[in-house]
């Protein structure tokens, strides 16, 4: 089982409470689709993804980005049970959406970068280390039900 120190729990809660999900969610997803264009393969039905400008103004992408952040919020509210929290989502991504789990890391990287850009020097090396640990646990949980 994942063990979190008081400090780590505090850092994760502090990061997420400083975020506006409606702002950072769309930004992180857009960044992922632009920086790693092959991830667009999962968004065929979302409309125009032709270039960076189109992606950034796509309302379906924005809505989905917000959805993702709220999904992460569920893990933040249940740090000792992240695997259980995501069991259903993991099955969904595997059986229905057929998403290669490596993509979870790519999106996680983009979210990290968005948070870094927002917090600047406040996103210290220690803070990043804790956040990366959290994302690694999330990614692992989302990949758990693949077979």
């Amino acid at each position, binding site marked *: 089982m994942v063990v979190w120190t008081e400090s780590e729990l505090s850092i994760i809660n502090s990061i997420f409470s400083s975020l506006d999900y409606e702002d950072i969610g769309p930004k992180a997803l857009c960044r992922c689709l632009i920086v790693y264009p092959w991830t667009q393969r999962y968004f065929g039905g979302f409309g125009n993804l032709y270039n*960076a400008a189109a992606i*950034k103004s796509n309302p379906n992408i924005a809505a989905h980005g917000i959805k993702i952040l709220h999904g992460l919020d569920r893990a933040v509210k249940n740090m000792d049970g992240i695997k259980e929290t995501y069991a259903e989502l993991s099955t969904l991504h595997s059986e229905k959406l057929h998403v290669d789990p490596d993509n979870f890391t790519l999106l996680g990287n983009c979210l990290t*970068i*968005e948070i*870094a*850009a927002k917090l600047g020097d406040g*996103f210290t*090396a220690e803070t*990043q*280390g804790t956040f990366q640990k959290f994302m690694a646990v999330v990614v692992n949980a989302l990949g758990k039900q693949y077979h």
Partner: protein
Amino acid sequence: MLSKKEKELIIEIWEKLTPVAADIGSDALLRMFASYPGTKTYFSHLDISARSRHLLFHGKKIVQAITEGAKDISQLTVTLAPLQTLHAYQLRIDPTNFKLFSHCMLVALACHMGDDFTAVAHAAMDKFLSAFAAVLAEKYR
């Protein structure tokens, strides 16, 4: 594949960072050590605490090499030849670590540049650092 515009953007970013090379480089290294503790094993002979002389020196060296490589990306194999030999025969750092460092360099850039580190700049930089790492590992085997 880097477009002409992307190459220009990359040169522009690294030239701007030259005065703070030691800060950016050491910041990226520190982030890597904090997020991926296994990477510290390559630095057991040095003091890699924050703001240490060794960390600043190494950080500066890395950023200077990257800046040099950025000046003519088509010539990376020529520019990096001595570093290729160093990494392959002496340092022998497992190349998967280059990816980890690149990620932390991108985070350092994001912290430093804020909104200026746009998705387009990020994409260009990620592609460049991937190419740089690939060339660096060319002499390994």
